[in-house]
């Protein structure tokens, strides 16, 4: 009996872990340079809110994509302005303040289109999979992914709390530079 329970529990854990590290090397590489209209805020004037756009992250809670995103974050020099989440020249990414929205599709749009006051447009510069990997990682910086998928350590010396142990920050729209 005890043995059967152990096998069941271990088996369940084993199966649950299946998709955590799914490595989709053949990411569909369609031309996605045009981004659908994505609202950068939840505020809207009158009537019922518009339907949410149909853009969905292909890498939600994918540990491999997040760790790749973490690598790309320094490769593509996001670090240069946003530092390791604390911000500097650019706004912080590990807090709850989002000027242009903190949902995955909004982060995606900010990366692709660029934003005023210095954020360049990376639409022409990154392929679609890399953008979404960056989105997945940026989400993990403020605890918006499940903690078993977020990166647990840095490759270099650890200077901050690992992404996997960060508390989820609320998403506050400020709509302007704070």
């Amino acid at each position, binding site marked *: 009996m005890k043995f059967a329970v152990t096998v069941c529990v271990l088996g369940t854990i084993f199966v649950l872990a299946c998709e955590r590290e799914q490595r989709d090397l*053949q990411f569909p590489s369609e031309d996605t340079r045009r981004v659908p209209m994505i609202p950068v805020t939840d505020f809207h004037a009158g009537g019922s809110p518009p339907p949410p756009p149909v853009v969905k992250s292909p890498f939600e809670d994918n540990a491999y994509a997040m760790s790749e995103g973490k690598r790309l974050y320094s490769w593509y020099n996001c670090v240069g302005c946003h530092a390791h989440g604390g911000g500097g020249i650019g706004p912080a990414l590990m807090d709850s303040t989002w000027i242009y929205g903190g949902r995955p599709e909004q982060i995606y749009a900010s990366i692709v289109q660029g934003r005023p006051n210095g954020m360049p447009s990376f639409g022409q510069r990154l392929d679609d999979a890399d953008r979404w990997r960056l989105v997945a990682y940026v989400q993990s910086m403020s605890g918006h992914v499940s903690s078993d998928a977020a990166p647990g350590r840095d490759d270099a010396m650890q200077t901050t709390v690992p992404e996997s142990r960060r508390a989820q920050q609320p998403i506050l729209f400020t709509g302007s530079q704070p």
Partner: protein
Amino acid sequence: MNMQSMLAPAGLQAAAIERLWWIFLIVTSLVFVAVIVALVAAIVRRNRDGGPSDRAAFRGVAAAVIATAVTLIGLITVDAFTARKLASLETDDRMVVNITGRQWWWDIEYQHPLPSMRVRTANELRLPVGRVVQINLQSADVIHSFWVPALHGKRDVIPGHANEIWLKADTPGRYRGQCAEFCGLQHAHMALTVIVEPQDKFAEWIAAQRQLGPSDASEQAARGRQIVERGPCSTCHTVRGTDAGGRVGPDLTHVSARQTIAAGTLPTSRENLRKWIDNPQHVKPGVRMPALGLSRDDIDAVVAYLGGTQ
């Protein structure tokens, strides 16, 4: 021709390592045979007339211990002389090359006091024959190991730790090197081609490498250059003399002059470049370069620009 064997040395140090290897092989083989013979003799002669006397047993054991000690000291002495030989090259009159191990390719930079005279290339190390070369080894990610069996032993490439290896190649030729420390998915496709050539040919080659990027004379090549500069290529790659200045992928300025692409995975040809750009993940699954989704026309234009005349 494409030699990757420490038994075919092309340099002083590899020759010393090869000699050491043969000495060890012969001595240890003799020891092995002697031990087996003694063992068989002991089994065959067991219990004959009540075994050896204490005195004879003592003599036998003493002889074995002395033989072992002598052999060991002999091998250690030979080893020490080999190590001295390996370290004998260090001199001020040397050429300095920085090599950075990356997943999964070798980033090579020929040093020069003038920054504009430095040459950055990838996966193909050209060396002048008879010249002492100091190679500084660094890693950008995980532990790799630099190993060109025809020239020297292995030297680990460790992140955050500066390592160096000194080489002198005495025989012109083409030698294969390989990452010798498991470093991830495409470790097996992390090869290094070493081409040893006469001094004048090397000087010619490095002068050509110092030239700026490929010509964009034809209309197609001009469009290719535009795609490389403004498209996703420049995020990671450098083409000297253009706006493309990414530092995380191989320098593509003279990619068509190299014999292989993707760290020895494919021989350089227009067809292979096309295949590679179209879907790197198909050629070398897991490689850091993503499939970019460029159209057939765009790929042809990029290949017309970077691919040279092959």
